[in-house]
């Protein structure tokens, strides 16, 4: 179990986003987190990676309690996960390659040439052309920025990757290519993936398990087939709606042999 959440509570003033939320994520799985707007998917992600201190409850990552952990331990743990933000969240004053090099700068005794080569390797691995490495984020399209954000998240070969809406704002072809890329990388790097998404195609293409957030907690977890049997209005509408049916027909993407 790489992530274990018990009794999580998040409040914004009088408004409760999470209350008594429990969730587990296993090693090596791709866990999709879905839910309507405002059900706190991103808040959950931010709570796990430590960008938000929950009002109550316990979060353990790699078996270590995250609440009240000292900064050194936290930093050591943070090196074992990578976060890809919605629009890449690249540093706009750095080139793409320098962006990917940022996490590598924290590694002691790594000479600049090696750092540069490793950054270029990661840029190639996420499917970006190498001449893009010297461009600035503002010059790139949204899809390329997302890939670059992924390259930065993967720079230290993390064990868990958190993806926040990885395919939002991409055209269907770009989104499908991203799904395929993730599938390949999950297999090659042995990643565990915490995936927050709205995109049913991505869910069917990537996820081993799905967690549905509703009514301030995790309403249901299980495989996509399990979800079809859940009797809850939102879950029914989501998975049995026309888009859900279409995504189900296309199914998972085949891992590409390279």
């Amino acid at each position: 179990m790489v992530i274990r959440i018990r009794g999580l509570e998040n409040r914004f003033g009088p408004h409760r986003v999470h209350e008594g939320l429990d969730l587990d994520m296993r090693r090596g799985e791709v866990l999709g987190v879905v839910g309507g707007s405002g059900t706190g998917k991103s808040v959950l992600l931010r709570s796990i990676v430590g960008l938000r201190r929950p009002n109550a409850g316990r979060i353990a990552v790699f078996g270590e309690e995250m609440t009240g952990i000292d900064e050194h331990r936290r930093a050591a743990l943070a090196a074992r996960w990578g976060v890809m933000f919605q629009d890449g969240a690249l540093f706009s004053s750095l080139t793409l390659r320098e962006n990917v090099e940022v996490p590598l700068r924290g590694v002691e005794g790594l000479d600049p040439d090696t750092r540069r080569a490793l950054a270029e390797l990661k840029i190639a691995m996420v499917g970006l052309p190498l001449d893009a490495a010297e461009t600035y984020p503002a010059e790139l399209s949204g899809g390329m920025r997302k890939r670059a954000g992924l390259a930065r998240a993967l720079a230290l070969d993390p064990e868990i990757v958190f993806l926040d809406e990885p395919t939002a704002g991409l055209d269907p072809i770009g989104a499908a290519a991203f799904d395929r890329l993730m599938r390949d990388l999950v297999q090659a790097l042995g990643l565990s993936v915490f995936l927050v998404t709205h995109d049913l195609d991505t869910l069917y293409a990537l996820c081993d398990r799905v967690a549905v957030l509703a009514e301030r907690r995790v309403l249901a977890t299980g495989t996509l087939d399990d979800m079809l049997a859940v009797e809850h209005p939102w879950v029914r509408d989501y998975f049995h709606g026309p888009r859900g049916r279409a995504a189900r027909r296309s199914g998972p993407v085949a891992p590409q042999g390279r």
Partner: protein
Amino acid sequence: MSIKIGTTAGRPEIEISGSLGLPELEQARRRFAQIPFAPHATLDLSALQRLDSAGAWLLLTEQARLRQEGTDLTIASVPPHALPLVEVVRANLERAEPATRPPLTVATLLDRLGRQVAGAGTFLRDLLGYLGIFTARLLGALRRPRGFHLTSLVHHCEEVGLRAVPIVALMAFLIGVVLAFQGATQLRPFGAEIFVVELIAISILRELGVLLTAIIVAGRTASAFTAAIGSMKMREEIDAMQTLRIDPASALILPRILALVITLPILGLVADLSGLLGGALMSWAELGISPAMFRTRLIEGVEPIHVVVGLVKAPVFALIIGIVGCRAGMQVGNSAESLGRMTSSAVVTAIFAVIVTDALFSILFAQVGL
């Protein structure tokens, strides 16, 4: 991690056990450098427990390096858990052709210089273009007052004019105080204290009042214009206006610059008055020149033309500040960084342009004998 280098029948055999990844990279590279030369060598990975992409990169680049030196390194028995990773890294290394930068030569330096000069030319032409846009929209608004954004004009007059009054008045007051104090110490040895009135009045009315007001307004308002228009540009609001058939120049640029043109002379007048007030107070305290005497001396000794010479510059400064600020805002790209860069460049350019224009005015007034 441990790397064992052995030799079987003259053929080096390297065995890596444990974990090979980013933390062990440099140590592993040093070990690889110790491999003795031989036409063939074997790398045994069967005891490898963990491999990350940096480790895989090292193995493949070292293999390539050894091949160049004439050693054919065979990578044998890759454990199944590491196999996909090695394949992915190999596939991407083949694609990775490092980009080369063009070398820095005299030609590229000359090229850069030429571009900068040309850029300065375009910049001036651009400013002239915005002056043209402003004039055209102003004339259009005069001909057809219905389409004029009056609310916007009043709002900006409050923002750039009324709200700047305290800082401008305080600044000018202190300048008056400083002038009186400095003038007093310089003039007293000659017994010419009374001339401090002329000193204060002429320097504030002709130059300092308006110039310093313009500099403060450039810092306050040029940056505010750039930031406001630039952030609208960044969020495509200006594009949205165009698709809705709202003219961004009439809606954004005209009210802002016009507000500056209207309020900067008033601010200059405020600065003049409060500078004289500061000077008079300091003269009274330091030199014993009573306010009544200061007033008489002021009316008798200082010609009103000095006020005109000072204030006539204000609308010109206002135009410069407004145009520089609005143009910089329209130049903002789609990154937050360009917004910051354009904002600070707007302030620097506006202040610089104001000072240069002031110098040109001095020459002009000297020529016409004012």
